[in-house]
């Protein structure tokens, strides 16, 4: 079985724990993280500063996001406890996840909200799009422990 585990920054631990609990040991697991386009936005805002020189000390925005993605995937792999392929992407999150799920048998992902917000609003627009468009089976987990 090929399983794609899509993690986001806030809830990766719950998603990886669910993957470790539910996926069979022989499953072929890929951990996917899609970088936000926040750094493109920041670069664009800088280009709005008409006539200002490029700031010599400005930190490399891409490096911040790339390093963050690498660290997150490495932590997720360590938490999963067995071998997994790592897939770091950037772009429109929902489209990247659906595209990556094309070759998977199962997609594991988390809701946006915890148990306190059961109902349609526990899925934000991005997760909703992925659930609606995923070409494979979907395992949708809660990002927090059940309360009471």
């Amino acid at each position, binding site marked *: 079985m090929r399983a794609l585990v899509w993690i986001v920054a*806030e809830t990766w631990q719950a998603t990886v724990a669910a993957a470790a609990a539910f996926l069979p040991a022989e499953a072929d697991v890929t951990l996917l993280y899609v970088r936000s386009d*926040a750094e493109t936005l920041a670069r664009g*805002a800088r*280009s*709005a500063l*008409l006539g200002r020189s490029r*700031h010599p000390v400005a930190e490399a925005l891409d490096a911040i996001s790339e390093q963050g993605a690498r660290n997150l995937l490495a932590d997720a792999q360590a938490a999963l406890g067995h071998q997994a392929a790592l897939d770091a992407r950037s772009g429109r999150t929902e489209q990247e996840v659906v595209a990556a799920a094309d070759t998977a048998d199962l997609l594991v992902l988390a809701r946006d909200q915890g148990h306190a*917000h059961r109902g349609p609003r526990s899925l934000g627009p991005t997760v909703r799009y992925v659930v609606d468009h995923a070409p494979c089976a979907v395992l949708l987990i809660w990002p927090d422990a059940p309360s009471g």
Partner: protein
Amino acid sequence: MPEALALALSLAGLAATLAAAIARPRWLPEAAVAVGAAAALVAVGAVTVSRAGQAVGHLAPTIGFLAALLLLADGCRRDGLFRALGDMMARGSRDSPRRLLALVFAVASSVTVALGLDPTIVLLTPVVLATATRLRMSPEPDVYATVHLANSSSLLLPISNLTNLLVFTTSGLSFTGFAALMLAPTLAAVGVEWVVLNRFFAAELGRPPGRQAVPAAPHLPRLALAVLTATLAGFLAGSLFGVSPVWIAAAGAAAITVPALVRRTATASDLVRATQPSFLLFVLGLAVIVVAASDNGLAAAVRMVLPGGTSLPALLGIAAVSALLANLVNNLPAILIIAPVALASGPAALLAALIGVNVGPNLTYAGSLATLLWRRLLRAQDTDVNLGQFLRLGAVTVPAALAASTLMLWSGVKVGL
């Protein structure tokens, strides 16, 4: 020279300057195009030497003011202010994305108000991105907030945006008078951003985050904070005693720069670079070009489009027209074009124009449609930005913020602030 020809030449010079500033060809600095076009307009007689000299002389104190502010911001960076703010936000967020966003709002607004739009975009945005990434929180709400607030909260003080600075001396307002009239409009604009961003990013902000190690207490840069506080207090006090804010800014710049020179943490050439001499020249050149265009018919055209008077509908109209023009040609040329015409209706009309050119650029993330189109045409790196999302956010926040801020301005004028 016939006026129509002079106008056509001036507009061509303006277009060439904007094109160079947006496209930024390596071999042709935008300052060279601006100064070259200004000199050419003087040479062919589209603007007289004395009129151009008057424009430059008029702007000279503002350019000095700007240079001092750039030095002040650079000193704050050198002293570690932005790094400390990042640590402070990380520590204060206590595993809550919404609390982090609230801190980003407070910090981005404060930095913009005290140091101006540029340091927020150039120096604070990377810190915010790094802080959210480090805390394992989606950085979009925080980066969007920083970029939006750099514009929306730049209404408050004459130093908060270069557009404010460019028209402050002609506005006839004192430093505190300007701030008093712009306080409620700024709060209204920031309030609109808070409501919209919280709803827009409800999914990201509502995610239950995992526990993160609490970062160590930040090392507060005492010199930067002391100089900034003293400078801001100086602006307000100086305004009461009739001391020009240029001197206060110069004193602040000296207070943060001289110790660095003595301790050799900065060299003279670092400091010259920090004042961005080519940018100062660019602004002077741009001002002369706009004067040439205005004198030869552009001002008359603006007068036909811009509502006169300071009634609420007139102020709303001025803010809307200014916002549209800022999106067409960027905010600096827009305010240079509109300010002389708006000022004829009094300072309230000028402040409405500032609300328009300052808040308006949030419609696109690149400051103007021209910049945005250029970036998307030429730079593959921009193709993955979620443009639809940004434009939707702009379409919701900008009209609401313009209306709310202008309403507050009008109320302030009515109660006699």
